[in-house]
Structure formats: structure tokens, C-alpha cells
């Protein structure tokens, strides 16, 4: 890496805005912070006195918990606001909600929202750093970063790998972030699923669209399945979960086409027996729980870096 490099992002809105150098730097920082979680006293004073608000407009267990654990291990004060307890249900606008939180001087707002672009909207109205913890079907950058960290730990380098992502690409913010992230790091990303799950123009993000799971998985180093739902907002996407499991689920027969040492990943939560058979999810090649562990490390890195882990500037995003 260039010795002149410094991390200059105030916000983490998406993988789209991150350069390969940024991603390298985040992953390296995460690796060095990961060890803290293995100590008997899992806490460092790095972010002492910093206030972090987890502003979640959508239900989330693991991502919210992961950010909270990450913040606490860095000694930040954390506050959780979820949609059910916020003013959103009382008709307050997103901007008003955020301005009210801002009036209490948080340093970072970690935000999840059902609508794409909502975190970007907030950056135009408030001064705190915004970390996107998932916005609509747009991006989920911390998930893609923890996926990349997990792959990097096993495969040394992401460059040159083949990553297969299977399932509901259309409605997946994880897929959009992963496709961009892995592609930026030099991997080839192949996607497959029923045509109702493949959004138009996804090739422009860098993915190769395959007509079958077998083709996507062939010689893959990583096989990732996405959570699927039968329908969304009155849109009939697949006939039934059973039919999906039969023709598109990831099972051991499909994995025969992948490399023998292929990693099995899933962003969670899994519909066992639907997009992934239980023996695959629990098998020796599955790194699904490592993804969760790495999530804390990556989020510690993001919190640290946006707080000016090094010299920071407000000039971007």
C-alpha cells in the first residue's frame, strides 16, 4: 500500500465509495483489532467518551448487536433506537428524527433503514458520521467487508478467486455490496437464481450472470447463498419455498461442482432447508459463524476509522 495513504471517509455509505486501498486498510485494521475480542478483558479505551447511536428503522438482531458489541469493546457509549420506540411511527420525518438525535451530539450514527438512499439523505442534514448498516435494497457495506475479511483469512488473497452468489440478488443489499467489494479486490463474482431474482443491469456492477447454479458454482472458491422470501409486496417471485429448495437450494450435490476447498457463506439469517440444506450450513466448509465473529472486528475498524483513527478529513462523501 502507498505510504501516503490515509483513510479519508467521514461516512461509510457503501462499498461503491471505497477504493481497493480503503478496503485493504479496513480489513488490515479489522485484523489487528480482532485480537481484542479474544482477551479476557475485551475492552480498549480507544473510543472512550464517544457517543454512538444505533438508529434502526428495521428489525435486526445480529447487525445491531454486532455494532453494539464493537462499540463497547472500544469503550464508546452506545444507545439503541429502534423503529418501534422512535418517533417514526408518530409521523416524524427521518430528517427531524435525525436532527433530534444530532442535538444530543452523537459522534456516529449507525443506521439501518428500509429505504435505499436514506443514509445519504441524512448526511446532507446532520454533522455526525453515518455508517450505513443496510439501506433498503441498496448497500450493506459492513456485511461485505466482513465477508471479504472471512474469505481473505482463508484464502490469503481475494484477487483471482471465483465467488458464486446464489439466490435473491434483486432484493439483496448484501449482494450489491459483495459484488462491488469482491470485484474491486480482484475476484470474479458469478451470480445465479431464478430470473425473477436477477435485476436488470446487474452486470454493470461487475457480476457475471449465469443461467444455472451449476454454472455459477463451477470451480468456485466461495459459494454464498442469500436468504429468500417467496414474495415481496404482492410480487409473486417464486411458486413456493419447496420448489425453490428443489431447483435452486445449495446442497452437497451442487457443491460437487465447486472447488473442493470452497467456503460456504451466508449473511444470515438462514432459512434452513430452503436456500441451503442443513448439512451444508453445518458442514466443515461452512464459515457462517466466522462471518459473525469477523463482523465485530470489521465494525470496530469502521468505528475507529471514521472517528479519525488516523488524520481525517471531511471532504468526501
Amino acid at each position, binding site marked *: 500500500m502507498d505510504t501516503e495513504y490515509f483513510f479519508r471517509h467521514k461516512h461509510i455509505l457503501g462499498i461503491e465509495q471505497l477504493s481497493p486501498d480503503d478496503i485493504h486498510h479496513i480489513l488490515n485494521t479489522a485484523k489487528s483489532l480482532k485480537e481484542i475480542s479474544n482477551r479476557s478483558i475485551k475492552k480498549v479505551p480507544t473510543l472512550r467518551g464517544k457517543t454512538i447511536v444505533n438508529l434502526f428503522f428495521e428489525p435486526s438482531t445480529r447487525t445491531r448487536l454486532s455494532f453494539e458489541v464493537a462499540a463497547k469493546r472500544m469503550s464508546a457509549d452506545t444507545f439503541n433506537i429502534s423503529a418501534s420506540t422512535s418517533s417514526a411511527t408518530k409521523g416524524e420525518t427521518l*430528517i427531524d428524527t435525525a436532527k433530534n438525535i444530532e442535538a444530543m451530539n452523537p459522534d456516529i450514527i449507525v443506521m439501518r*433503514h428500509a429505504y435505499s438512499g436514506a443514509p445519504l*439523505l441524512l448526511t446532507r442534514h446532520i454533522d455526525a458520521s453515518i455508517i450505513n448498516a443496510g439501506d433498503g435494497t*441498496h*448497500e450493506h457495506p459492513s456485511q461485505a467487508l466482513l465477508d471479504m475479511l472471512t474469505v481473505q483469512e482463508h484464502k490469503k488473497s481475494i484477487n483471482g478467486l471465483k465467488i458464486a452468489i446464489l439466490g435473491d440478488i434483486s432484493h439483496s443489499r448484501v449482494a450489491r455490496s459483495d459484488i462491488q467489494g469482491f470485484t474491486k479486490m480482484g475476484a470474479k463474482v458469478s451470480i445465479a437464481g431464478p430470473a425473477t431474482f436477477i*435485476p*436488470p*443491469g446487474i452486470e454493470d456492477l461487475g457480476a457475471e450472470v449465469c443461467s444455472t447454479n451449476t454454472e455459477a458454482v463451477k470451480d468456485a472458491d466461495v459459494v454464498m447463498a442469500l436468504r429468500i422470501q417467496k414474495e415481496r409486496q404482492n*410480487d409473486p417471485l417464486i411458486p413456493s419455498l419447496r420448489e425453490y429448495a428443489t431447483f435452486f437450494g445449495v446442497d452437497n450435490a451442487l457443491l460437487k461442482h465447486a472447488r473442493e476447498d470452497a467456503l460456504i457463506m451466508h449473511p444470515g439469517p438462514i432459512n434452513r432447508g430452503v436456500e441451503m440444506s442443513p448439512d451444508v450450513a453445518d458442514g466443515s466448509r461452512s464459515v457462517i459463524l466466522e462471518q459473525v465473529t469477523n463482523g465485530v472486528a470489521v465494525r470496530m475498524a469502521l468505528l475507529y476509522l471514521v472517528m479519525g483513527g488516523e488524520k481525517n478529513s471531511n471532504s468526501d462523501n
Partner: protein
Amino acid sequence: MNTVILKNGRLIDPANNHDKENTDLWIQEGLIASSQAVTPDDAITIDLQGKWIVPGLIDMHVHLREPGEEYKETIASGTQSAAAGGFTAVACMPNTHPVNDCATVTRYILEKSQNCDARVYPVGAISAKSEGKGLADHGEMKEAGAVALSDDGLPVLDSQLMRRAMEYSASYQMPIISHTEELALSRNGCMNEGSTSTQLGLKGIPNAAEAVMVYRDIALSELTGVAIHIAHVSTIDSLNLIREAKKRGVKVTAETAPHYFTLTDSAVTGYDTNAKMSPPLRSDLDKETVIKALVDGTLDVIATDHAPHSILEKEVEFSLAANGIIGLETSVPLTLALVHKGIISAGRMIELLSVNPAAILGVTGGSLTIGHPADITVIDPDKTFCYTPDKIVSQSANTPFLNWQLRGKAVLTLLGGRTTYNDLD
């Protein structure tokens, strides 16, 4: 006698096959008059060297928001915006609160438009409350002064209702203006379907959502023999259907809006809610095809779909933002861009912005015929200006053209001889 003489302008009057430089136009007692040998002593003369004198522009598709949403626009502010954009008449869509589906609302709009800065032609609803269930009272709206029918903003999904509306309204000579959108295909969509919508994670609206209904309406026009006007056409698919139908002799006319030949869906990047409208901004191919259709006659009219919204509707999450942009003040420069590029002639521009809308709506105007009311627009085709927030006349500021450097504008607007806008140097 009150006489005004517009001197030395390029007089463009396609309805009378007239396009001549250095021409004078006389106005007496608010009417277009023939020029006389002797200039009266008290005549006001205005030198218009280098400028165009054209029939007052007519925007057949605007939303004035009154009654019901006066915080966005009123009939007074909307007509001021029209005058500033060079328009002397506007047709206002019925999606007010309450909906203009009866004589009472039509009369209210016309009363409010008295002494305003543009003629206001109310468009009545096709269906009661625009709910798409039963016919609104077309006859009483016609009697009260409505000139056309539309459920704009909402498509008439029930094909039988559309058929009956066409048949019934024909006896009142009220053209039907159709908002063509198959809601099952556009549901939850908030921008054009394509790689930009995929990248932004926004639900897309495919071209087929428009084309399916355009074909439905063409088929109903053939079935009933009644004319249909297709509003805000945005796609190549729709234009192909309309072009073919016209060749067959179907009585179909169509309009587009300046944003469809100026912008593409890439304008949504950054989740700019001022680039959100229905139908959505489309692909580059669609944009280029709209331009060709303005040239070849597939499109008859440029209308703005002027749709004022406040920040309450626009400074929100993109998916939740209201559709629509204001357009009255940018229509002339954006259309002139096509003239400057040599794509359409000045005469064609005036056909699209004045002659054809007058003919389709069946209203006066669209020409500089002697004896007609002096609804006249003077355009300086080369005057440049930056469309900054302080210049906006409309009560709302939802425009993707904010801070654009524009070339060409209306510099004098006369309504029945009365000056409604004057930006002459």
C-alpha cells in the same frame, strides 16, 4: 384607441404559414389588428429586433394544486409561473382536493382564475373522484367550462370504463387525455427499470408499464372511433405504437414533456427526488426516440406536467417522495435547445407549444390571426440565464434544472394585450 406595435421581430405563426423577419404586429384594444399606414400618436411601440413574436404558448398539462394544496401552488401563483415561462394558457389537471369531477369545482377553478396571468382551462375527471369506478358528470363539467377529461396521476385501469368514457364524452366534444400506466407493472416502482435502479436499489418501472396501456387506449380508440390523447409519453415502445396507429389513421395524439427529451434516469443518481416523476426519466435510447418523434410528428405536443411539490413531499426518502417537477419556466429554453441544435425548426417548436395544444383542446389561440385576442409571447432565443432559486416564480422549487445555465427565454408575455410578464432589457 389603445394601440401597441411590436416592431421588427421575427413573426412565427405556423397556423397561418407565416415566418418572417423584421415584421410588425399591431395590437388594438387587446386584439391582434392589421397594421395601418398611420401610427396613432399614443401608440406604444416596442422594438423586438432579434426576437421572435409567436402565438401565446399553451401548456395543456399542468397541476395548479388549487383547491386543496395551496401550500404548493395556487391558481394565481401557477399562472404567474406560466406567464414567466411564456405561456398564456394552461389546462389544469383535476387531481385537486376535492377532485375536479363536478361543475362546482370546475366553476371554483374558473372563478379563481379571473384576472390571473394566464387563461385556465379546467380538465375534468373521467371517473367520479378519479377512483376509476363510475363516470364523472362530464356534461355538467363541460357546461361549467371544462375543456377535456382525464384522471391524470391515476390511470383508468378498467378498460370497459375507459371505453364508455370515450363513447360518452364524444357527444360533448371533450377530448380524453390518458395517463397510461399499468399499475400492476409499476407498483412500488419509483424510477426507470435498468442498471441505475439496480445500482441504487430502487424498484424499477419497465417501459412495458406505459406501452401496455398505450396499446389498450389505441385499441379502444379504434373500437369507438373516438380520439384519444396520450399524456407524457416517455418510451420508445409507446412511440412505436403511436406511430403505427397514426399510420393506420387512428385518431391518436400524444404529448411529451421537456424532461423526457433532456434528461435520462442517470439524473436519479444521488437519490435526487427532483428527478422523480411519473412516468420516470428513461434510458438514453428512449430520450433519443422522444426527440425523433418530435421531429417526425409522432408527438404532437410538448406539455410540461408542471407538478409543484413542497419540501414536505421532496425532502424525504426517495421511495417516499412525491412524483413530479415544476416545468412552466424551463419549457421554452429546454425546447429551444432542440432548435439551437438544428433538430427542430422554430416553426415546429411553436406548433408543439401552441398550435397543436390549441387544436387538441379545441380552444382559441395557437395563431396570430387578425381579430383574435392578443395572446402573444415574445421569445429571445439567445438570452442566457441561470435558473437560480431566486428566479423561480412558482411557489414550489422542485426542479432538476435548478442552477442550470439556460439559453433562450420568454421576455414578454401578453394576455389579451395585457402584459403578464416583461423581461425586456
